[in-house]
């Protein structure tokens, strides 16, 4: 049975194989988002000494796990209200424009040493350009709804995303200087050799800058002024209901997972094992733990997602002028200085440039 499946699989043409993988990744991503919303509410509940969702069960077991699936059904059944005087076409187009980049970026993420859907040379550039396209969903949502709160939220959000994208781009230039390639698989491979040879060690300031920019790019707390409930109700998606709202939600959470994956790939060795060379040889468990695999990437993604939630439960929301100050006056100068430091290091063959 298994053998026949694998022969059929290898007989498939390349595009059919990648289409199959794309479908698998898309479905896995949607399920991860569903579970992530539950995990978020649980974690924040625990931090605030509450229980979090614990009523909806699956098959009478696992209290709370049914919650996200019940939410999906609810959102699907609710009416999508299009406000009067809204621009109908753009109003419907906006959530789709938010969702597409959040999913399509996964094409270039190396999931394991063998598996990457599109092994393109300019992978990092592709990631950055799709991230910058994601802002359209927000701007259009705010404009099309013809609501003041939505418009204010969209403008705030656009200016914020744009400011942090620069810091993000500069941080990635630092990564490129080490790896010398835009291909994400190569970026991971150049970091091989245990946790201390991963990029975070020599690029610690850039790692921090990248993760903070990622928080701001995804409009997550403490940078969620775009939807600051206390001031502008829900920001750019006030007028959205039902599945149209759910698509924004899906895009935001898919982007969180994406930023976690990218942080692991760029700075924490992606699918490389942190135990590589630290365990005694022999034995199936030790071999598995020392080998690079999707297990390690998944674990790293999970850790960074937890950090996202932890930060949300811990920090109060930044004020808008403070956000802009942090982006322009703190993060960008740090990245510029560190690029200069890397220039000196590479000239003197220090650290990752030692041959």
């Amino acid at each position, binding site marked *: 049975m298994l053998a026949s499946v694998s022969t059929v699989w290898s007989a498939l043409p390349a595009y059919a194989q*990648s*289409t199959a*993988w794309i479908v698998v990744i898309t479905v896995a991503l949607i399920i991860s988002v569903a579970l992530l919303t539950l995990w978020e509410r649980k974690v924040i509940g625990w931090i605030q000494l509450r229980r979090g969702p614990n009523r909806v069960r699956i098959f009478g077991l696992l209290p709370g796990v049914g919650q996200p699936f019940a939410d999906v059904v609810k959102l699907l059944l609710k009416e*999508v209200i299009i406000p009067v005087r809204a621009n109908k076409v753009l109003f*419907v187009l906006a959530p*789709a424009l938010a969702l597409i980049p959040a999913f399509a970026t996964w094409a270039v993420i190396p999931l394991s040493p063998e598996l990457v859907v599109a092994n393109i040379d300019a992978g990092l550039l592709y990631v950055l350009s799709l991230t910058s396209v994601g802002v359209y969903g927000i701007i259009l949502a705010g404009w099309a709804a013809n609501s003041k709160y939505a418009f204010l939220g969209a403008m705030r959000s656009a*200016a914020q995303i744009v400011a942090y994208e620069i810091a993000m781009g500069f941080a990635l230039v630092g990564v490129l200087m080490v790896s*010398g390639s835009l291909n994400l698989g190569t970026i991971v491979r150049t970091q091989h050799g245990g946790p201390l040879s991963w990029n975070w060690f020599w690029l610690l300031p850039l790692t921090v800058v990248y993760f903070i920019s990622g928080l701001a790019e995804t409009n997550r707390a403490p940078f969620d002024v775009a939807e600051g409930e206390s001031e502008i109700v829900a920001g750019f998606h006030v007028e959205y209901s039902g599945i149209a709202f759910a698509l924004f939600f899906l895009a935001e959470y898919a982007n969180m997972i994406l930023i976690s994956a990218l942080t692991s790939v760029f700075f924490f060795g992606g699918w490389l094992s942190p135990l590589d060379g630290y365990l005694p040889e022999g034995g199936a468990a030790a071999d598995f733990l020392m080998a690079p695999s999707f297990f390690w990437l998944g674990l790293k993604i999970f850790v960074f997602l937890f950090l996202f939630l932890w930060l949300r439960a811990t920090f109060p929301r930044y004020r808008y002028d403070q956000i802009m100050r942090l982006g322009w006056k703190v993060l960008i100068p740090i990245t510029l200085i560190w690029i200069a430091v890397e220039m000196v290091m590479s000239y003197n063959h220090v650290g990752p440039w030692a041959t």
Partner: protein
Amino acid sequence: MLANYLPVLIFLVIAAVLAGVLLGLGSGLGRYLSRAPNDAAKRTPYECGFDAFEDTRMKFDVRYYLVAILFIVFDLEIAFLFPWAVALSKIGLFGLVAMGIFLAILVVGFIYEWKKGALEWD
């Protein structure tokens, strides 16, 4: 090389189809189950219970334009940095110095911006 880009195209198409199917399904079901699809109060934009005062699309603080312009400049700068960082090992000291001058000129612009208060929000 082009063959590597085919999955990217497929992924974009599948993501678009996913969004389209979800939107179609959700708004169809919602419309079908709705009790008052054309209720006027429901369909007015939210404004804390008031009637909407005026058209929403209004003039905005000029600083948002400034941020967008500065973003273009810095984005171009990043676009120049990418090939440089990739080719770092091949271009030697000359390339390093060339980029040093490039960055120095732009840091002058950045400092100007800072001193002029273009980065202040109030």
